[in-house]
């Protein structure tokens, strides 16, 4: 969190984490389309030729003036592919909240778990942990066949009992709700630690 008193700005960083192709960029694209254009910046995407996230996607959101201050949320996605480990470490720096976008498909459970372990490891490198940083779990792709039940996903991924949201990001289902939950979670945490 960065507070700029002269500009009356509070800047918070939220990172969308998860395995490759779980729908992180899709979340940001939907938010970009749905929010009042006067409240958002450009959607910056650094993609490979195959349209996969190479480094990060970035989108800044504002919600006007609240109690004299301008809260700004800087949303980042990470590249999910295993070989971009270094990029993920860099993007997690200074994170205030995390949305873990899990792929609900049964055959993607191992990738979800690997990504969650990778997240925990990277947070520890930053002097943080999954227990100290606010995070929520988005169970994405609920419209596809051969998906795990919410109970199965809860049992395997939600061992810390964080808020969960079912989503179909390509249609926008659950995307705004996920953002709202993480913002609430982050703000509550900020109050706790101040």
């Amino acid at each position, binding site marked *: 969190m960065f507070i700029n008193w002269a*500009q009356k700005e509070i800047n918070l960083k939220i990172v969308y984490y998860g395995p490759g192709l779980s729908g992180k960029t899709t979340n940001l694209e939907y938010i970009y389309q749905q929010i009042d254009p006067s409240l958002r910046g450009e959607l910056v995407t650094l993609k490979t030729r195959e349209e996969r996230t190479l480094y*990060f996607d970035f989108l800044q959101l504002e919600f006007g003036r609240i*109690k004299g*201050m301008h809260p700004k949320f800087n949303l980042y996605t990470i590249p999910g592919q295993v070989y971009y480990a270094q990029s993920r470490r860099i993007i997690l720096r200074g994170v205030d909240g995390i949305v873990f976008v899990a792929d609900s498909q049964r055959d993607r459970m191992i990738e979800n778990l690997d990504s969650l372990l990778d997240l925990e490891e990277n947070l520890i490198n930053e002097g943080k942990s999954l227990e100290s940083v606010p995070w929520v779990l988005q169970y994405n792709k609920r419209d596809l066949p051969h998906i795990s039940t919410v109970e199965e996903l809860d049992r395997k991924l939600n061992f810390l009992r964080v808020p969960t949201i079912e989503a179909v990001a390509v249609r926008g289902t659950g995307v705004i709700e996920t953002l709202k939950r993480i913002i609430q979670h982050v703000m509550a945490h900020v109050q706790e630690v101040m």
Partner: protein
Amino acid sequence: MALAKNAPKSQFMLSTEAFNEISDVLKELEASTRAELAVFCDANGVPITHAGKPRAIDLTSLSALNAGNYAATREMARLIGESQGFKFLFLEGENKNIYLCNVGYDFLLSIVFAKTVALGMIRIYANKAVKQISGILEKAQKQEQMAEEFLDVEFNTLLGKAFDASFRKPNSSTKTES
């Protein structure tokens, strides 16, 4: 401009006084070098203050990319055994260049300047500005303002309402099939 050994801070507050002082340093830097733009941002890519004419330049995106770029090169430095990181980054274009350096561990200074301006001069004035800003930040940390005054339950309630008002109603973009 070596990287500080301490870990990055997760929370940082910048007072109005420090903000104004840093803005003055940037104005002096811009005037002395005839640079087009000097931007001070945090290492996470949040733009803080600038001097010059950003015109069509999107400072938010530029700062986010500067931060990502700088962090990536710091990792590259680590891979080749350069533990202190690189002193600066220089991006040379056809007409414009970018000079980027860190201010301690938590902040970055980037300068956009025309090809006609000598890199040597930018380096000298950037070094001077980094020292001045470091001094201002050190002083500012001792005068932290309290944020509890406004970051309360009421703030969160108002933020929730502002959030709800900021998005289109579900399916409002869906076209009716004829």
